[in-house]
């Protein structure tokens, strides 16, 4: 298990055991399911986005592997308080971090705790776990964006 640390950094293990923002949200404006039927990962995301396009609050429920759960927990941590545009930008950067060996993002301190996912590219079959909820959030953000530009 020499490389276990690559994938299961303490921060990931911690967030998978004690996820933040876990539970339902009463005052949500957006809701989406993030399902990977192939491995059984299944989450519900709740986002409360203000008229000013700021993500005021967010939460999630559901079950899945440590990677997907920690990723969801850390994602919500990272985007709460951010604007839709900022969250979208982070989505793109997180994808690079997770998918590309030695991506610029993996060296970038502004990624904060998300850097814990910089070893996932070595486990191609696990990439989809790390990005499952991110893609679901992206779908919400895009819908918001389209509504606003109509």
């Amino acid at each position, binding site marked *: *298990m*020499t*490389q*276990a640390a690559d*994938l*299961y950094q303490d921060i990931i*293990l911690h967030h998978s*055991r004690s996820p933040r923002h876990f539970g339902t949200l009463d005052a949500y404006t957006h809701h989406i399911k993030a399902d990977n*039927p*192939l*491995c*059984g*990962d*299944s989450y519900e995301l709740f986002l409360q986005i203000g008229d000013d396009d700021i993500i005021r609050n967010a939460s999630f429920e559901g*079950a*899945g*592997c*440590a*990677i997907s759960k920690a990723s969801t927990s850390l994602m919500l941590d990272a985007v709460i308080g951010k604007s839709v545009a900022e969250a979208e930008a982070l989505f793109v950067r997180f994808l690079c971090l997770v998918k590309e060996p030695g991506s610029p993002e993996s060296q970038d301190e502004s990624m904060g705790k998300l850097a814990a996912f910089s070893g996932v590219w070595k*486990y191609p079959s*696990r990439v989809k*776990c790390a990005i499952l909820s991110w893609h679901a959030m992206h779908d919400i953000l895009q819908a918001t964006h389209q509504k606003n530009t109509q």
Partner: protein
Amino acid sequence: MNIALPLKTDFPALQQKIKGHDLVWLDSASTTLKPKSVITAVHQYYTHCSANVHRSVHTPSEEATAAYERSREMARKFLNARSTTEIIFTAGTTDGINLLATSLSRGILKPGNAILITQLEHHANIVPWQMLRDYHGVNLRIAPITATGDIDLDAFRAAMTPDVKLVAFSALSNAIGTVLPVQQMVRIAHEAGALTLIDAAQAVATMPVDVQALGCDFLVCSGHKMFGPTGIGLLYGRETLLDELPPARTGGDMIKSVTFEKTVFNDLPAKFEAGTPNIAGAIGLAAAIDFLLNIPFEAITRHEEALLQYAIMKLQEIPAVRRIGTPQKQVSIVSFVMENVHPHDAGSLFDDDGIAVRAGHHCAQPLMQHFNVPATIRWSFSLYNDMHDVNRALESIERILKVFS
């Protein structure tokens, strides 16, 4: 127990290192590794002969045809079919079931007829029948299993209503290792006037499969799960039935004559093999069968039995481990979950130790639903595994539990 040791060196894939460790292959239920003789047979076809079959009068083609038909005879012998006319080469188990489903929908199954499968089935033995339900109006029924993962024979008997024309089930569950009472189930089906299809994908590498002894009407299996190449498989069918059934796929080689108005199909087995077949695959499969026939099957069974019993005993000593499926008769395969560890996380951590296991639903989601788990970890044993492999996997469990403690 020693029969496994000399064989390990026969498998070049076992020479590789995974993340610095010697590979331990506990995923034979997904695909078996290939012995040297199989790899060489495929190689020789491409380097030496490399011609098409059944089509030309030249020597390379005659050699290829002879080798291809010798492979059919090997397969006949392996399954103990009455004649090579009963052996159809397919691309694998899934392909064989789909081929048969198409043919049955054209020939024997009528709208309103029912097909009975079990709750244990692999998706390959579920979805093609759902397609017949959706496109041809047949009904699909499910024979339930017990809490242990055994077939419920009383319920199976009760499900054999007169409209049931086909009963299709796996001889050995790929997800939890249940050995089904095939002979008995075939008898019950036949008494009720139904045809029987056995999915022997898992069974063929682990226990002797004799179509005459089983009494089944059809049987399918995959080359790649019995030490053979990918892209090749077998469909056995009783000659009278294959004679009666229309072909499923059509094209060159399976015809006697073609005019635009009317095509006359070829005799068996050609009738069911359209186009250039997987010649290298068939030749490699024959080498795999030869490999298998040279080992007494009881030795394989006994060896895998010992590994499985040891693994089950040790797994039961670990409180965080819960076995999924505790069937009365179980071979080669054990499935389990670990408390607080998702199977996929466990899978990645086993891999870090060089141990290849399967984590997932094993293409048996309805069975997972029965046990109320999204996925399990599956260890499957084959003749090249040994106690050392089991011990390494057990050590790995300890470390995985520590990571997630």
